[in-house]
């Protein structure tokens, strides 16, 4: 059993820096815009996987409905873009010009009230973050205050994902139905379909992802991160140490929702549409698989896991489209059974010890040295993690 502790404090900034260089320099230099745009799309899923590391890996809250938040963020952005693409000039041939085309097809004669505020870009940006956060907050309060957890919670989130999909598909006139919101063109007059726009959006996406990684790193290194680990193990003890356990669960669930929503909005911008096929049960479970493959306790693993699985999916489904679902199921079972800590766990057991040999022996040897004598082997394995927060001054 690898200890959760080993992972905390492992996120040395150097690892984050390497990822940043890969995303910001290597990928853009190595790929044409078509492939880079594809990577950008995958990276939007990494936001969701990152959220899952926090709420599932650390908080122990398995949500099988993160697609809901990805979708909410994506739809908020899509509504803004769709309104901009539906100016009266562009839609002059419709029976009601000035409303999105799918509304016109569905015999709507006026813009529904909840679409109105999405004329404003400022409101849209707020909505991308706040709508999913509020929704997660409501679910969180309803579930965690009642102490619903584990499998029950997972099933409920799955049900919510299913319900939202059905709702979106059923309310065609308001949502674009099963096709989703398509044919998006400009953002405040800036054409998002051009190659240069795709480059810029890729970089915005990468910077946002790095920002979320830094935020996630801050959270897991704070006392709140340690509390999450403690709660997974001994929820009662945390409660009887004077913490309102449900408020921490609600918080981390909301953070995961906001990350997912940012990913969703960036998806809409980079891919040019949003549809219910990213909201439902299947995409939500796929996101969990990305997270598990990367290692559910590793925030950087979430990014690598997402890229790897999606790369495999793309290559695989080109040749054997009908086999992909089975392959992914097998991958998930394989990872969970054989490598519960995913890629990050493999890296830690096999790669890092080798790297360590190239480095100078660590000069730090103080208090923890005394302990390792008594604790024997096990203490030495946790040593490097401990040092980072040796007493006084938790950076």
């Amino acid at each position, binding site marked *: 059993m690898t200890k959760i502790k080993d992972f905390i404090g492992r996120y040395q900034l150097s690892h984050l820096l390497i990822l940043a260089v890969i995303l910001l320099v290597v990928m853009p230099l190595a790929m044409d815009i078509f492939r880079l745009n594809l990577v950008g799309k995958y990276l939007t899923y990494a936001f969701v996987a990152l959220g899952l590391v926090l709420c599932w890996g650390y908080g122990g809250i398995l949500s099988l409905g993160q697609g809901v938040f990805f979708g909410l963020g994506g739809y908020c952005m899509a509504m803004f873009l769709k309104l901009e693409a539906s100016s009266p000039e562009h839609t002059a041939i419709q029976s009601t010009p000035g409303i999105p085309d799918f509304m016109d097809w569905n015999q709507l004669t006026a813009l529904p009230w909840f679409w109105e505020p999405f004329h404003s870009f400022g409101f849209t940006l707020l909505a991308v973050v706040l709508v999913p956060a509020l929704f997660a907050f409501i679910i969180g309060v309803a579930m965690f205050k009642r102490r619903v957890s584990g499998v029950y919670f997972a099933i409920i989130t799955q049900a919510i994902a299913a319900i939202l999909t059905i709702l979106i598909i059923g309310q065609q006139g308001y949502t674009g139905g099963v096709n989703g919101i398509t044919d998006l063109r400009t953002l405040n007059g800036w054409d998002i379909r051009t190659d240069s726009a795709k480059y810029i959006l890729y970089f915005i996406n990468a910077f946002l992802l790095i920002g979320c990684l830094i935020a996630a790193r801050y959270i897991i290194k704070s006392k*709140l991160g340690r509390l999450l680990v403690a709660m997974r193990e001994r929820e009662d003890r945390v409660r009887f140490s004077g913490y309102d356990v449900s408020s921490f669960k609600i918080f981390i669930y909301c953070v995961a929702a906001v990350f997912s929503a940012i990913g969703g909005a960036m998806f809409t911008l980079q891919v040019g549409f949003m549809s219910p096929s990213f909201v439902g049960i299947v995409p939500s479970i796929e996101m969990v698989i990305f997270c598990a493959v990367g290692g559910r306790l590793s925030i950087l693993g979430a990014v690598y896991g997402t890229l790897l699985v999606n790369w495999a999916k793309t290559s695989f489904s080109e040749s054997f489209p009908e086999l992909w679902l089975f392959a992914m199921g097998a991958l998930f079972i394989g990872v969970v059974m054989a490598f519960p800590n995913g890629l990050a766990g493999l890296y830690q057991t096999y790669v890092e010890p080798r790297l360590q040999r190239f480095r100078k022996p660590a000069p730090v040897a103080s208090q923890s040295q005394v302990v390792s004598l008594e604790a024997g082997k096990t203490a030495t394995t946790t040593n490097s993690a401990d040092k980072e927060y040796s007493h006084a001054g938790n950076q």
Partner: protein
Amino acid sequence: MLETNKSIPQKEFVLSIEGLTVSFDGFKAVNDLSLYVEEQEIRVIIGPNGAGKTTVLDLICGRTKATEGSIKFKGTELTRLNEHQIVHAGVGRKFQNPSIYEDLTVFENLELSFPRGRNVWGALTFRRDTEVVAKVKEIADMIFLGDKLDMNADLLSHGQKQWLEIGMLLIQDPELLMLDEPVAGMSVSERKQTAELLQRITKDRSVLVIEHDMQFVADIADRVTVLHQGQVLSEGSMERVQSDPKVIEVYLGH
């Protein structure tokens, strides 16, 4: 009113339990129980297995909701509060099986129990400053783990885990400390150390202890309450309780 005043001593009560009843599907694990704990008192609850001892602690700390009755702690009615609010009011509780965070170090175990930054924002902005470090070290020395601060808690012996959990309560500085079988699984010398520890920490607080080890009980108890089938069977000094025929019957007839 007058009558109750006569039957109970005139000292300040930290904890007054009156008419407490809890029923699990009709089975009354605690039945119309009344119990009063004074300031700076060490009270020990003894009783046969299944007498309802742990359930009484569960009721006080909010883990189980009472069916009837009242629990007043320094004038605050606890039955209406949540677990964490009860902790904030000044009640700390140790579980029957050592309940610590095995994935974290001794230092971190104590630090998480330090009463600061207990809400989301506080936890995000919590800083390990000199005050925290000093307090953690002070408590660690008190619970005989001063040289084990960096050790992962799962490597501690059973007795040390018990101490660590006591330390996690002490760092909260509760006015009422409740310990469920604190010396279970401890060696003789560890028991002695624990007894001394309890004597020392009771200067600023009241302690409610559940224990089976009679020698240990005799060592620490100011007064003893014997619980049987959810009710108080006998109460008083150790000698008095031990010579009570009702108590003898329950223990021997068991």
